[in-house]
């Protein structure tokens, strides 16, 4: 057990002292390296203080609950990482919500509910239906939606196909809050939240938004319906998966094995499996197709004998 300067200083003054500040700045200096897009527009010091302003007393209490300075730093590191992860995801999530609303607005299949922020079918009843999230997700998974990437690096969801998916979802759910629809789409299409460059989503222009609705998407990376039976599909999917996702699909039924290989705990392994399945669904287009290619994809994974990812 090491020094307890952070706690000692707080004991003396009733507030966090200079050791806590030094620790906070050091943690953010380190963690920011994981977020190069963010690092190019914000300084570690600014982010550290924004973090404190946002997390407030909860962070103070957690730091002082730690038995020594090392533990306080470790806890802060975890909190900092989680906070930064959310920070870089906020913008794509907000952008997804905006784009979704535009698609709902422009389609004759839907109308706004009498309840604020809710949507329902144009020819449907404006009432809730008792339905679980899992049911809605399963419904959404059955509909084929092509996921492509446009010239600007933005994820585009198949014209007409997304609308059909939303139609079926609202048929099941009656009326749904836009936040729930956004959440559902983020789960169904995980790549909509992935931004290689955090700046890209900030540079989306009105023209690009128009383009999504009026033109065929360029750069069709993923399979179309006619190619489903083709083993090249499995290869294409395989190429798009990260090493961790490949490992997760390899050990789909064995989370404990996966935990060992990834060097993580059980819960984390379960989450990785869930994410890999969602990604496979997105790449294949719908649940039926993902089941069809699964065997081929896993065969490719086994042939590949990937090294354990170092992340």
């Amino acid at each position, binding site marked *: 057990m090491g020094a307890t300067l952070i706690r000692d200083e707080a004991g003396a003054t009733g507030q966090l002292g200079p050791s806590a500040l030094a620790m906070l700045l050091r943690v953010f200096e380190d963690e920011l390296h994981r977020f190069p897009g963010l690092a190019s527009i914000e300084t570690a010091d600014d982010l550290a203080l924004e973090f*404190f302003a946002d997390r407030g007393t*909860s962070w103070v209490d957690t730091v*002082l609950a730690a038995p020594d300075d090392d533990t306080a730093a470790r806890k802060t590191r975890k909190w900092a990482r989680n906070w*930064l992860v959310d920070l870089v995801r906020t913008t794509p999530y907000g952008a997804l919500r905006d784009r979704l609303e535009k698609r709902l607005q422009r389609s004759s299949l839907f109308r706004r509910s009498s309840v604020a922020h809710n949507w329902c079918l144009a020819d449907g009843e404006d009432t809730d239906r008792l339905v679980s*999230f899992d049911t809605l997700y399963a419904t959404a998974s059955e509909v084929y939606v092509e996921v492509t990437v446009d010239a600007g690096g933005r994820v585009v969801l198949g014209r007409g196909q997304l609308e059909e998916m939303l139609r079926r979802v609202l048929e099941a759910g009656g009326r*749904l809050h836009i936040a729930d629809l956004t959440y559902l789409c983020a789960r169904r299409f995980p790549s909509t939240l992935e931004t290689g460059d955090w700046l890209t989503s900030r540079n989306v222009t009105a023209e690009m938004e128009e383009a999504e609705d009026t033109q065929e998407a360029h750069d069709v990376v993923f399979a179309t319906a006619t190619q489903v039976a083709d083993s090249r599909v499995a290869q294409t999917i395989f190429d798009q998966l990260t090493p961790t996702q490949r490992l997760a699909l390899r050990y789909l039924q064995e989370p404990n094995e996966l935990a060992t290989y990834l060097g993580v705990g059980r819960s984390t392994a379960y989450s990785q499996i869930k994410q890999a399945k969602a990604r496979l669904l997105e790449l294949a287009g719908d649940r039926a197709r993902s089941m069809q290619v699964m065997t081929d994809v896993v065969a490719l994974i086994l042939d590949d004998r990937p090294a354990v990812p170092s992340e």
Partner: protein
Amino acid sequence: MTNEIEDRWAALVAQFPPSLTPRPAGIDDEVHPGQLREAIWGDVEATVLIIDVDDENAEVTVNPVSLEPGVADEHSLLLAAESVPLRGGVAVWPQVTAILSFVVLDGLVAELPDDALNVIRRWPSTARSEPDHTDGSRPRFGAEPLPGSGAALAIDDLLDSVDGLVAIRPTRHHRSPGARKPSFPLGLSDLIMTLGVTQSEAMSIIRGKRALPPGQAEIVAHAANVPVADVTAAALPLPEELERELMEPRWRTVIRQRSGARDETEAREELGRSAFALAARDKGAGRELWRQRILAVLVAESA
């Protein structure tokens, strides 16, 4: 560091004072249900709520807890600042229970009032029965963290940490009464000469009250011309009550300080040895007496 950073920091610490005054662990601190405690071993740590205490086996039943804002899912219960002494609120997972040994428990973070604890204990029957459909004014899945989000990462880490802590189990020695203790392989005067210790120290060693560190055990083994195992076997295991007392969180800070880079278990055993050596007689021990002896060891060392 610029003045601007320091100024902003000063404003923030003034705005966010701690919810509770930090105070060191007291020698009379007990483990009670309703306590929020830090649990830590090595670099695995988690905050837990103690639901039940098994005093005899020195184990607690706990629920995982998070102080991190926004960390919650469909299985967690959010305790708002009115129900808990922590101003930022707390999330508990009442249906995730784990049994931890006392040895992984560390300091007290806060104590829940009884009514909050009862709500948690009787969860989910105490959950406000909400119909599955809402009036649409709030999202239905609002509390669910997205995969890969900060909250999801935090929840995974919390559950994995608790799993890791569950695995930490000290070996407890149960002495069978009447078991014969092997005799020390060296006589009193030889031992005094070999190790250069005082007579009373040598007596403690021979009686098995003081265990020799590996280096000294080897010296003695060499002098007595016996295997080292014969030397170390002569040390009595610590009395059960002393072992049990040492598992209490009130000694955790001290043990962690003394262990440095070594295994905590070793440091705990060593502290026990020192207390054991202080005991004038074997009989009439009991937890309270051992507590006083351990305290006496610490006081003597700091003098």
